[in-house]
């Protein structure tokens, strides 16, 4: 099972992307990690770590990010919470990438297969 986390500077943007994905894949394990604790713009490593900690140990994790610093924040979180072996941080285009990943995860593909599905959608981040 692959769980997907959408990291964005904006709470609304992250939730909107999750909403869009849920329309296609109702049962997908996709989480919104947007904005800071007070809902202002920014990326919160604590918020991301809290989500990661709720994901069962036997699930793999795919993290998709909006722009530059959310990628850096997510990368720091992976460094500090020892999940690198079951986690992939992707530079795929956020909206399209999340849809591809969600559909792939819902048909039971593993992290390596999903990573491959996203390979043509990688951006500079």
């Amino acid at each position: 099972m692959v769980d997907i986390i959408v990291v964005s500077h904006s709470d609304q943007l992250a939730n909107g992307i999750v909403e869009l994905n849920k329309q296609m894949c109702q049962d997908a394990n996709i989480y919104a990690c947007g904005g800071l604790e007070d809902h202002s713009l920014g990326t919160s490593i604590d918020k991301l770590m809290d989500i990661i900690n709720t994901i069962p140990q036997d699930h793999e994790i795919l993290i998709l990010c909006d722009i530059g610093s959310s990628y850096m924040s997510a990368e720091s979180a992976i460094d500090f919470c020892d999940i690198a072996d079951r986690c992939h941080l992707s530079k795929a285009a956020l909206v399209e990438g999340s849809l591809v990943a969600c559909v792939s995860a819902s048909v039971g593909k593993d992290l390596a297969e999903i990573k491959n599905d996203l390979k043509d959608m990688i951006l500079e981040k």
Partner: protein
Amino acid sequence: MQVNEAIKILDNINSEIAENEQYLSELDAAIGDGDHGHNMTKGMKAVVTIIDEKDYSDFGMLFKDVAMQLISNVGGASGPLYGTAFMEMAKWCKDKVTLTQDDLIELLNAAIKGIQKRGKAVENEKTMLDVLMLTTNYLKDQGLDGVEGFINSCVEKTKDMQATKGRASYLQERSIGHIDPGAKSMSIFLINMIKGIKA
């Protein structure tokens, strides 16, 4: 420099970042999202709240706490960047109880390694590294004399650069003509650290 002196330096950095909050945010508003002053002030406030109430026996423990506070409390790119810099510095000075002028150069090399690991930037991309890398070279070649003036000139030089990393890079050539806010905040860290080594 002893650990308790480093705590004092971090207190001074906190005060100076807070004094420059508006200026840093103005610099950031010109080429980014305008929150650098607010973010750094919030981050450094969290740092001093933790370090002022704990006892540290070595620099490694101190810098690790600084790193975690910055990573957790700065909402923008500067959180992971400064946080990873302090984390690499913490690794380098694990168990160290004093720091000399030579140690400072090694410490700054560790910070460069951390920032490059996270941000993938090189020199001349209008980032904090344009101050940190040149200052480290200056210290290696010329020592402490005149380094404060040199640091300020490095900050000024970022004005003429075009950003190719970070959010400012979206502005392309319109990023030219503004000082990089990360370069300015980095100068505050460096000048205070150098004051501490000189004392």
